């Protein structure tokens, strides 16, 4: 890949470009060159660094939603559903 005419245009990365690449960065989907430019931008930009940290916190907060508690009612419904299936009732 020719890195000279890639997305950052060869020199300065703007905040808008950096922010647009956050997901590709976290997904490890950037080329080595783009990754290096992204990281250079972050090292020089407190705002984009804060933005990336907030995205990471958002992802962590989303992960907390994965709770597997069931209500007694749901357990009961599903036990019944299983019995009906066993009796070829559903």
């Amino acid at each position, binding site marked *: 890949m020719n890195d000279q*005419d890639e*997305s*950052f*245009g*060869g020199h300065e990365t*703007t*905040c*808008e*470009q950096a*922010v*647009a*690449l*956050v*997901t*590709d960065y976290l*997904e490890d*989907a*950037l*080329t080595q060159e*783009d990754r290096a430019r992204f990281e250079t931008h972050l090292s020089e930009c407190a*705002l984009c660094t*804060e*933005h990336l*940290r*907030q*995205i990471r*916190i*958002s*992802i*962590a*907060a*989303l*992960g*907390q*939603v*994965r*709770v*597997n*508690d*069931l209500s007694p009612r*749901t*357990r009961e*419904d*599903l*036990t019944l*559903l*299983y*019995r009906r*299936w*066993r009796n070829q009732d*559903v």
Partner: protein
Amino acid sequence: MSTTRSPLAPHRAAGDGDAEPALESVTDPSERDLLARLRAGDAGAFTDLVERHHAGMVRVALGYVRTRPVAEEVAQEAWIGFLRGLDRFEERSSVRTWLYRIVVNRAISTGLHERRHVPVEDRELESDDGAFSSDGWWVAPPTHWADEAVDRLVARDMAPRILELIALLPAGQRRVVTLRDVEGLSSVDVCEIVGITEGNQRVLLHRGRARIRSLLEDQMRG
């Protein structure tokens, strides 16, 4: 500005193209054992599977239907589909991926979600990255809250509030964010379950996460 293409364009062909979509998750040994017990008529094995997967199935259904009772109904119907298809399941994916696919099919085929005949809602295309000047610098920079908020936001008791925020996302973003960031599935599995390309998945994930960040920022201010 010398930018020649959208920075959101996929940077690599990997995952977008010709490779057969090999699911990353296969049936793990403990689930294989559960399936064997279930096929042998062990009701306890069904209970175990329900404890592991039902809550997630309801969350996935909420990507397609609006209310919790309807999502619950879809998830219960999916269990019937699962039991009926038990003998045909070849264990080439994880039980979870299989169950979620049944949930999605149920949600769509029972016509419970308001189908739209456009592939992507307009709101899906709105960017929540922030406000930038014409030369690409922050106009409305993110307010500084990461340090003080991390303990508060990444806490179990925030879960109901976060669920409310997820419900505010447009459907495509809601589905992808739920499967990736809540349920923790791989992008390959998510593409398979939702029926979208890798590139599309990444765009929806990007916008969904950006919107959640922006909603959390509003919470910080409020």
